[in-house]
């Protein structure tokens, strides 16, 4: 059984019915009996949940385990903020997915300006390009190449800011060029020189995606996809929050900044 399957199984609710002896007089039982019976029902449920915890804990995504694809190139750093911040938020995202775009523009941007800037949150980006999107794999390549030369944050923002535009024609290059200096853009172009074929994307059947042999960023994208499959990422955006070494269950979809901030404040007040 793979980690993904194990995590999926453990998160499933499999308690459709709880056996309990009843009688025709039960409908007139006093509240005290009802409360005792409730505890009897809750006890086995509590055990089931405790057993599920290690499986979900095992899926905690490590932020910095990048295998070097080419020793001459440094691993892409797709993080924003201080590594020693108390909260780490790992986001699995697809540059072409509209929800990811909204999540970045409305929630993550505010978070970066506020809690990342103040050292409370460390943001880790993971690529999870979906097969259904034509250009998301290629966008991930540009972001990873920029991350190899320390320009991730600007390119990441440019890709999300202009998502609607490049989604229409696939012209990513124009927006990456506009986000960084000409010299850095040339370096990024040089990194992507060997990336002429299709970019890796996550597969519907969860099989291992294939990268291009001459493309130095593809192994990092594949590594993120594999990591995401273990979480398991079932939709984008999905994010995992860690605090004091503990991982909280993955959440999916668009979440507003006030509600996310409230969760962070609850964690920080512990």
């Amino acid at each position, binding site marked *: 059984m793979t980690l993904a399957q194990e995590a999926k199984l453990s998160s499933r*609710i499999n308690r459709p019915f709880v056996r309990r002896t009843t009688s025709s007089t039960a409908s*007139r039982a006093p*509240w005290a009996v009802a409360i005792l019976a409730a505890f009897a029902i809750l006890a086995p449920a509590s055990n089931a949940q405790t057993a599920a915890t290690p499986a979900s804990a095992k899926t905690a995504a490590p932020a910095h385990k990048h295998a070097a694809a080419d020793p001459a190139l440094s691993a892409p750093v797709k993080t924003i903020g201080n590594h020693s911040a108390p909260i780490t938020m790992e986001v699995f995202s697809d540059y072409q997915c509209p929800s990811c775009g909204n999540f970045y523009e409305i929630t993550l941007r505010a978070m970066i300006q506020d809690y990342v800037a103040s050292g409370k949150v460390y943001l880790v980006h993971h690529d999870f390009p979906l097969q259904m999107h034509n250009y998301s794999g290629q966008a991930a390549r540009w972001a990873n190449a920029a991350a190899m030369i320390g320009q991730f944050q600007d390119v990441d923002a440019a890709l999300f800011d202009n998502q609607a535009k490049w989604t229409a024609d696939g012209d990513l290059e124009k927006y990456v060029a506009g986000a960084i200096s000409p010299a850095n853009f040339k370096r990024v172009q040089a990194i992507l020189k060997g990336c002429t074929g299709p970019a890796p994307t996550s597969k519907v059947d969860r099989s291992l995606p294939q990268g291009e042999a001459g493309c130095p960023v593809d192994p990092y994208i594949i590594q993120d996809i594999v990591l995401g499959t273990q979480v398991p990422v079932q939709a984008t955006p999905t994010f995992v929050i860690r605090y004091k070494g503990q991982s909280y*269950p993955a959440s999916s979809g668009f979440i507003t900044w006030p509600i996310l901030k409230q969760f962070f404040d609850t964690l920080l007040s*512990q």
Partner: protein
Amino acid sequence: MTANETRTPLASTLLILGRVALAAIFLFAAYAKLKPQASMPWSGSSIKTSLSLFAMQVDSYQLLPPQLVSPAAHFLPPLELFLGLWLLSGVLLRYAALITTLLLGAFFGVMVRTYTAGLEINCGCFGPGERLGPLTLLRDGSLLALALAVTIGAFLRGRRSRVESAAVAGVSAPQRAD
């Protein structure tokens, strides 16, 4: 024994099973939302954290404005706990079952709306980590049908009780006159 006489105990048993099943499901749903996350022990702080996590799931439905998300997330699990205990007690079952049906109907409506809108989010029905999909819709639809059946059964039983009481009163009244 007539067919009518055998039907009554069977209906009564089914009603008890139905309400206990609903109670167990509601109690488990409340427990799953309130239980401490990430190996924390039970405490006020851990419950607060769990409710904040649940608030994110409520928010992901994109139905409520942010200022209403948190109150809703803090209200729903205690309501589920209360309804679970109420159903289990069997006291005023008609009303407990009716409120349960209305609540499940609202949940089901919101889930169908979210699913048809194409939002790929966690259901949040039994705590975090369960994706909203056809299976969760089928499950919640079945729960709604069960709650509706218990409600109808509870109202029918109430009506039958009133009819029987009236019949007994009708027989005993002439006896007292005698």
